[in-house]
Every structure is written in C-alpha cells, then in structure tokens.
C-alpha cells in the first residue's frame, strides 16, 4: 500500500443528504463515515474502540467523554465539548425532527464538563449506547457550518472525517478529497475519493471491469462465483448486520391468526432463497440476530422446518378449507422480486394463494407505517448491537413494529436487555425474545445478507459489515 491515489467507488444510489442527523436511507452510509467520523470507532468484528473521543463509563447511566486535543472540522472550527454538546442537542431537539433522537435512547442530559470533556447521562441504563456512538448518532457536524449554510448544509456537509467535500453533482459524482487537518496522522492514504451512483448492478459491474471505478458496492450475488475466479478483481464478503425479512400484519386477517402465521413459516423454505436468490452468499435466517452479532447469535436456532404438508394440515385443522389469499408487498428490485416469487410458489403449495404487489421504496415506508399490507418486505440494514435490530421492531410501540406485534414478554425482555450491562445476560434475554418471536411468528425471516463488494485487485481496504466505507488505511498497492 502506498500513499496517494484516486479512488472511484461505484455505489447503488446517490446519498439523499450529507447531513448525518437527517440520513434516512441506507445509501447515505457510503459517504457519511468518510466526511464525518463517529466519536468512537468499531472494528469489522464489532469491537468498540476509542476514536476522536474516549469514554469512561461512570455508571450504567453516566458516560464521560474526552475528546482528542486539536480536533477540527473541515472549516477549521474546533471540535470541542461545546460542539459535541451542540450536536447532541440538535439530534434531540424535537423541533429539528432528527431521526437520531430515537437512536440515542433515554438520554437525559449532555453537560460540558471541560473544554474537551462532556458527560452524557441517561434516565435509565441504555446498554447499546456505546455502539450507537460508533454509528450514525456518533457523527459530529460543524455547528458553525450548519448555522451558516442553513439548508445548503445537506449538500455540502462539514464534518471532521478524513475526507472533505469538494463537489457534488447530484446523480453523477460526489467528489471528496483528503482532509489535511485530519487528526489521525498519515491517514487517509488516498488523495481523493469519488462516489459514483450507478443504480444498475450490471452497469456498475461493467464499470469495475472496465476500470472506471476501483471499488463497488453490492455486486450481484449471481456474479460472485465468476468474479472470484477473476484475478484482476477481489471479491469481499462480510456478514451483514441486518436481516432480510417480511412483516406479517397481525392486526388483520389472515395473519391475525397465529396458526396461519406459523403455517406460513413451515410453508417457506429459506434455503431455496439462499441458493436461488443469494447464490450461497450470506446465510439463512430464522430470527433478527445475525451471525455477525457473534455474542448474541445462536447458530442452532431453527424453530421451523420446511414442511408444506404439515402447514396444509395445520391450516385444515384450524378450519381453513380454501387456500388463504394474501398479498406479498415487495419493492421493485430483481432479487427481492425473485424472493417474493419463491415465497409465492412455495406458499401456494401449502394452502395459501399469495399474490405479489410491487411498489417503490417511498411507498414501502408508507405502506409499512400505515399497516396497509398483508405481508410486506421490511428490511433492516442492521446495527452493531442486537438492540438496534430488535428494540424498534418488537417492543409494543416500537417505531418499526410494522407487524403490529404485541407481546408483553418480548417487550419486557428487550427493555431489560437495554438496561442490562452484562453481555451474557443480555444474550440470554435476546435469545429468549427471539424464541418467543419465532413462536408468535409476526415476521418471516428469510436471510442474513452479506455485504458483497468488489475491488480492483490492487486496491486494499478493510470491509465493513454494514457496507459503509471507512477508508483509513485503504490504498493502492504497487
């Protein structure tokens, strides 16, 4: 690896906004960790390390942060305790409407305790907090820039990360260049990074093959085998943090009946999707906790076997004579449609009569929030902590509780896990919740996706499970 070089990254879609406090779509993470940097960092195997700040856990509800000396934002203003507090306040201010407020859990107060130190205190213990600080809510923006730029901040963010924004041509390229004032000496190696949105996976791959880009996100699973055999390219696969699943609307027929939901779990064989849709990348999923959450993941957890006849029998026993019709809502992407088609085909062998409804991404969110579906794809890109994968989904009024699932026991377990500090204890609580969720079957878990990326063979970087790019240490060889 050598210093210097220009990297072009082919990504799936342009970020919507560069303001981390308002990022809502998955595609923003491509740029976020390059422009901004979280207070704490996380390794690819999810170990939390000090970054711009170090932290001391005073007690389960009190955290003392110490910022490095001499941190500056790209605009030269200092990143000190005041600036950090300002960031927290912005995220927490209901008038601002930032979705980060929810990430931060029960924060009670942020106090500046010195020029470079501040304390975050909670009303109750919040175990995932440190992992949250390695993620979206840990990203600090320049208060001066936000105040001066107003609405324009979203397009020309000013952070303290290794790269700063040079120009952004919407839908064409986001040009970043090395930030000279970056705290981590010798980093980054690259001179410039250009993010180029190329929505079509085939075209994106063509760009990599023709050398217009040196790194691409989301290679199509079906091409992985062939690409691995190609010496000029390197394929990177890392288990993702999220899950690929469908919500079953438990508030209305037919999925208000747990028997029907359980029958559906027996009717569908995620192994087929694993092979046909994902070409043996990633892994089959039975619950919300992916293998990458090593300490919480239970590899033997497999509550439902594939048993179409059994499913049929269950339904017959429960008095369903005719095939049960329902609609599978899914967004328009070849792989997801393929998955929906598989579910449709398998379910119709087991006493169901599903149809597929394709919608666009924006509609999906509306559909999910309005519970205007029978069964809907509800993706989750995942967080480094199981809390991030479960709390919002399965607590009683969790914002992502799309199925309308209500189970006091699960709710209790998830809340308890939040305030529990001991990891083993937490793992037990999550597995207990996972088992109960499986029994109630408000969701159909299909797959734990891998993060699939490819690069030119001469480009070396450390792949992140969440698919984001954190390019400290990344560079070209030779």
């Amino acid at each position, binding site marked *: 690896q050598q210093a210097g070089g220009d990297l072009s990254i082919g990504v799936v879609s*342009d970020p919507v906004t560069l303001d981390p406090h308002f990022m809502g779509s998955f595609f923003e993470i491509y740029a976020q960790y390059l422009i901004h940097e979280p207070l704490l960092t996380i390794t690819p195997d999810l170990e939390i390390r000090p970054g711009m700040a170090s932290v001391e856990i005073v007690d389960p509800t009190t955290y003392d942060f110490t910022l490095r000396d001499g941190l500056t934002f790209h605009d030269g203003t200092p990143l000190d305790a005041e600036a950090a507090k300002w960031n927290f306040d912005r995220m927490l201010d209901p008038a601002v409407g*930032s979705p980060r407020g929810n990430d931060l859990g029960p924060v009670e107060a942020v106090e500046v305790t010195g020029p470079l130190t501040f304390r975050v205190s909670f009303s109750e213990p919040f175990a995932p907090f440190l992992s949250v600080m390695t993620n979206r809510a840990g990203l600090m923006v320049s208060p001066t820039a936000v105040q001066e730029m107003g609405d324009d901040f979203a397009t020309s963010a000013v952070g303290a990360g290794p790269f700063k924004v040079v120009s952004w*041509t919407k839908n064409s390229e986001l040009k970043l260049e090395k930030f000279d004032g970056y705290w981590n000496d010798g980093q980054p190696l690259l001179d410039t990074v250009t993010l180029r949105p190329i929505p*079509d996976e085939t075209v994106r791959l063509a760009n990599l093959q023709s050398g217009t880009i040196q790194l691409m996100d989301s290679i199509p699973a079906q091409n992985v085998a062939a690409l691995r055999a190609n010496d000029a390219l390197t394929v990177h696969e890392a288990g993702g943090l999220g899950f690929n699943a469908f919500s079953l609307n438990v508030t209305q027929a037919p999925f208000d009946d747990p028997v029907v939901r359980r029958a559906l779990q027996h009717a569908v064989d995620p192994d087929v999707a694993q092979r046909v849709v994902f070409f043996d990348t990633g892994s089959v999923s039975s619950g919300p906790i992916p293998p990458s959450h090593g300490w919480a993941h239970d590899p033997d957890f497999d509550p439902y076997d594939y048993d179409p006849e059994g499913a049929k029998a269950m339904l017959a026993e429960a008095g369903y004579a005719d095939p049960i019709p329902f609609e599978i809502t899914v967004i328009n992407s070849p792989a997801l449609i393929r998955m929906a088609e598989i579910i449709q085909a398998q379910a119709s062998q087991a006493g169901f009569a599903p149809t597929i409804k394709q919608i666009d991404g924006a509609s999906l969110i509306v559909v999910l929030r309005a519970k205007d579906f029978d069964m809907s794809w509800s993706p989750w890109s995942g967080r480094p902590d199981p809390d991030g994968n479960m709390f919002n989904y399965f607590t009683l009024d969790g914002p992502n509780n799309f199925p309308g699932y209500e189970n006091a026991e699960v709710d209790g377990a998830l809340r308890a896990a939040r305030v529990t500090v001991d990891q083993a204890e937490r793992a037990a609580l999550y597995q207990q919740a996972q088992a109960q969720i499986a029994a109630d079957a408000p969701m159909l878990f299909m797959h734990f996706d891998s993060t699939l990326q490819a690069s030119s063979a001469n480009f070396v970087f450390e792949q992140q499970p969440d698919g984001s790019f954190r390019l400290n240490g990344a560079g070209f060889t030779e």
Partner: protein
Amino acid sequence: MRYLTFRLLAIVPILFGISVLTFAVVQMVPGDPIVAMIGLEATDEAIATLRARYGLDQPVVVQYFAWLGNVLQGDLGRSIQTGRPVLAMLGDAIWPTVQLAGAAIFISLLIAIPAGILSAVRRNGAWDFGASFVALAGLSVPSFWLGVMLILAFSVTWPIFPASGYVPLFEDPAGHLRTLVLPAITLGTSLAAATMRMTRSAMLEVLSQDYIRTAWAKGLSPAAVITHHAFRTALMPVVTLLGIQMGQVLGGVVITETVFSWPGIGKLTVDAIFARDYPVVQGAVLLTATAFVLINLATDLVYAVLDPRATG
C-alpha cells in the same frame, strides 16, 4: 409577429394545465416526501415537525397557490430532500440532458436522413429493405437493453468508451465526448428509426409531386432534384417530427440517464418522483413541458421559414 404573440400566449394555459396536472398527480401518489426522506426510523413527531416545516400540512389547494405564487415570482422552491433550490438543481441537470439529447438527435439525423432518402429513392430495392429493417430493429430494442449491451461491448469487451458517468464539457472536452458516445447512441437509435421512416415516407410523397416532374423536365441531375427540390420540402414533416421528438426525448431520457448514470433532468425527475420530492417534480415537469412547448413553437417557426406558404 402577431402570430408569434398569439402562439406565445397560447402556451400559458398549457403550462397552467400542466402545473395543475403535475400537482394533482403528485398528490395522488401515495407516500410523502418526509417519510421518504427520513425513512424507517422516523417517529411520528419528527414527521409532523418536518411536514409543518415544509407546509405540507396545508390543504392541497393552498399549497398549490402558494407554489404558483412563488413560481410567478421566479422561485421554484427548495427540494424537500436536499434543501437545495429547485432552480439550481434544474440548472445543474439541464445541461447534461441538453447535451445528451442534442448528441442523440445529431446522431439520429446523421443516420436517418441519408438512409431515409436512399430508401425512398430506391423504393423497394435492397437498400430500402435493408435500411427499413435496421430502422425497425432500432425501434424494437428497448433502450435499457441496448444501453447495457453497448456498455458490455464497448467498455468491457472492447474498452473504447467509459461504461458510464458524466464529464462536464468544459472540464475535459475529450472526456466529455467519450462519455457522451454510448448514451447518445442508445438514445439516438430509436430516434433514428422514427426519423428515418418519416424521411422515407415524406420523400416518397414529395417525389410523387408534380413539381418534381417539373424539375426533371428541366434537365436537372438526380442529385439536384433530390436535394434541392425533393428533400427541401420533405424536410418539413421531418422538422415537425423532430420537434415532437425533442420533446419526447426530454421525457425519454429517463431510461438512458438511469442506465448511464447521466445526471440529467430525466434521472432527476424520476428520483424526485420516487422520493416524493414535490417541488423538484413540479419544477422538473414544468421545465420539461415548457421546453417541449417552446421547441414545438420553434419547429413551427422553422416550418414557416421552410415553407413560404405557411406565412400567409
């Protein structure tokens, strides 16, 4: 002059109609820019806050007239998603589209006009058959497909042109042209097909006119008859078609721009629709429609120049 004023005035109700239609369609689309923007994690309060901030909690009619009032003052508003002024976004996106559309039309004319003329002059000959076949093949290839094929052929198999991307003209003219080639061919192909067929039928019609016989009877060479006499008049329906095509191109660039990651109006509009970014959708559609109407007016004027009878 009076005619021009009349025509310009006639544009106003059309644009008004278009803005109403756009507003109506956008309102009918389920979804909401705020939800689309902040995604799955948004809380209801956050959504309400942001809705109020962008005036989306107002009745539709109020929103429309507020928007219209601003438009009349030259303010198209700001994107809800990115907060950028719509006018600036359109300004950025228009050049790539104009370049792409221009190049596509140029390529299509380069192919279509000679092919159409030849095919008409050698009617039912091998040339006619061959050219028509190729033209129809052009019509029947969906551009998303053609685009991908061109990329695989000319960037991967024979790496001559970049697979996609946009290089601004003034930054790197050579690079610009290189990135322009494949998308322009993709878009130009279907245009060429239509133009070629129109040229052919217009030429066929003109060639059967009495004044062509007069031209022959004067002893002119075939080249003179075909270019000076026949093509000159056959050009008129072709120009009209071009006007309509240019308008359609503005809408039709969507696919090409998506495939080639070309940062133009089409991609902007589609993204805005999918993001429910109302101000952007409205601005983009209004821009496209205005361009369409103006281009059609321009072709009518060109028509008047080409056809002295029209200026009566």
